[in-house]
């Protein structure tokens, strides 16, 4: 009897999980499907779901018109660069705040987070002027810097939370065994926090990859990443939904594949310490 109830509950939960999963994934699936339609079929009402003339012409046209590889390379450099630079700054910061908290540590953490509360457009002009004077407009270096700054509060917060889970006694024990600061961080702390650091790394790559305000506003032709590539296919006058979908599919595919392969790491990192 108990097993029957259990099975029933499991079936319901599975069903709900599938429904939620499909609801979340549906827009992406529909974008991918639309990218294989003609422009006329893309706006047909009622829309055909699978039974239409599949075509690759949108991909061919997007390839012909845009330099996908340049945008892709820019995206890779910008997202990896800003994440790595962010980690280099955030790990020591989080380490000192987690293991040597001072009176104002909490306030500093809150203050860091508060910088995320300002709408980015509010500081567009000052940042634009700074970038202009530093010759950083339309450069990857400039975007790496600005995305590092933007994502730094999140990186520090995440790593701080992971470090907090690690008992300070372990570090003390290492120190008793003669480990210096470098050994302590590299051989004791980092291996223990690897799942956390890895998930921070992945999450920040995704955030930087998808960032569409600064990457559009601070670039022109040379450093424009995939967000600018997508924006070049959007049009308020003319139905180019199929081409836009093809461009979107090409832009999200790399990050989707990365996410797929690293989902175990990502979930493990995000739930790190949650069940203790």
């Amino acid at each position, binding site marked *: 009897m108990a097993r029957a109830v259990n099975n029933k509950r499991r079936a319901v939960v599975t069903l709900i999980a599938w429904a939620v999963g499909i609801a979340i994934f549906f827009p992406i699936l529909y974008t991918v499907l639309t990218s294989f339609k*003609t*422009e*006329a079929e893309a*706006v*047909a*009402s009622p829309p055909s779901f699978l039974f239409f003339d599949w075509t690759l012409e949108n991909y061919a046209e997007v390839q012909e*018109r845009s330099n996908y590889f340049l945008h892709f*390379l*820019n995206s*890779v*450099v*910008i997202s*990896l*660069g800003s*994440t*790595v630079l962010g980690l280099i700054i955030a790990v020591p910061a989080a380490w000192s705040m987690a293991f040597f908290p001072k009176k104002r540590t909490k306030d500093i953490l809150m203050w860091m987070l508060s910088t995320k509360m300002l709408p980015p457009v509010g500081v*567009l*002009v000052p940042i*634009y*002027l700074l970038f*202009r004077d530093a010759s950083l*407009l*339309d*450069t*990857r*270096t400039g975007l*790496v810097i600005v995305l590092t700054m933007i994502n730094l509060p999140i990186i520090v917060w995440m790593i701080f939370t992971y470090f907090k889970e690690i008992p300070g006694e372990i570090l003390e024990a290492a120190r008793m065994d003669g480990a210096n600061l470098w050994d302590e961080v590299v051989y004791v702390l*980092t291996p223990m926090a*690897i799942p956390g*650091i*890895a998930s921070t*790394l992945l999450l920040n790559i995704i955030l930087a990859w998808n960032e569409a305000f600064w990457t*559009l*506003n601070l670039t*022109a*032709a*040379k450093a*424009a990443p995939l967000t*600018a590539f997508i*924006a*070049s*296919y*959007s*049009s*308020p*006058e*003319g*139905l*180019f939904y199929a081409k836009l979908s093809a461009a979107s599919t090409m832009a999200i595919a790399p990050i989707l594949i990365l996410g797929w392969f690293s989902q175990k790491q990502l979930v493990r990192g995000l739930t790190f310490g949650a069940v203790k």
Partner: protein
Amino acid sequence: MGIKKLFGAACSLLAFGMVSSASAETLTIATVNNGDMIRMQKLSEDFTAQNPGIDLDWVTLEENVLRQRVTTDIATKGGQYDVMTIGTYEVPIWANKGWLVELADLPSDYDVDDLLPAIRGGLSVDGKLYAAPFYGESSMVMYRKDLMEKAGLTMPEAPTWDFIAKAAKAMTDKDNEIYGICLRGKAGWGENMAFLSATANSFGARWFDMDWKAQFDTPQWKETLTFYVNLMNEAGPPGASSNGFNENLALFQTGKCGMWIDATVAASFVTNPKDSTVADQVGFALAPDNGLGKRGNWLWAWSLGIPAGTQKAEAAQKFVAWATSKSYLEMVAEKEGWANVPPGTRKSLYANPKYQAAAPFAQMTLESINAADPNNPTVDPVPYVGVQFVAIPEFQGIGTAVGQQFSAALAGTVTVDQALQSAQQLTEREMRKAGYVD
């Protein structure tokens, strides 16, 4: 992969990415994503072949993103672009601020006098040309000949609003999802307000009087908005308050609209059998009027301007002259056919019998453009330039806020009177803040 390896790979990729490359004279051109501009990009090899010392970098963006992007750049003298695609809204404002290079050194065979007077007027300040028109557009009525015939009516070449209302009701067949008229309802200064400002001109309304006082409390605006909301409620598609150009284009192409009043550029889309199911049934007429001497059509020209901050003004001027020349039109005609030539900029194009034969909507486009006068847009005099907009920097914000009120009136969440009252209040407030009125 170990974390060390990953880190190493990331660093080397970063270093590789940051190596900057040396370049010759490269023009960076910002443009919008529409068919004519994309064609120009494809054909630009002709320009680089003629000018071996000049390379071209293209930045194509969606209209609103582009506007934000180029405005930031030109206002801060960022110098990211050498040629910018801008419209008739930006040109007078930017030229007055000294942000644009005057196009004084166009080559002798450019023939400035061949530009359509309405378009040239919209791009000039004090008689000086500050941007060259790449393509021009107005608005007109596109209608289904078969549905019009079925309703027992004949569309005149220059219809009145009364006729449009009568025809829309007669063509509507809601059971079969056919709606007599499709109009813009989505809020935005370039969305519903483009249509409604132009329509209001034909009802004798205006945005401001000569003292910059907002005019939404006048009977003309009430008549305009009441007519629009009633017409759309009776004969428009459901959910019209979120429809813009693309939504209406999709509805018209799939046979769900009897009439559609929108940009002349739509003519080539709805008559293209590849995309449109009603391609062979489309007729055209001038935008409607109310017998007051002004038609409800707008005027817009996507144009190429050169920011004053550029170091490459000479090369940029060469490019602008190439892209907007007569020979460019001939090259497009030769390679892609006369129907694909960017319309609405030159008199000679409309005098060309080959173009007239290839583009059935040519005459209507020309007449629509000629019927709009950006320097004298309304029945009563106004202190501003612009048919479907007011060429002042504050208009983007005010226009969109008013557009939200009118969109809400169409959706039925506020009444026409409430929408007009809010529009009046917010416009007065913004104009006071901006210092136009005390």
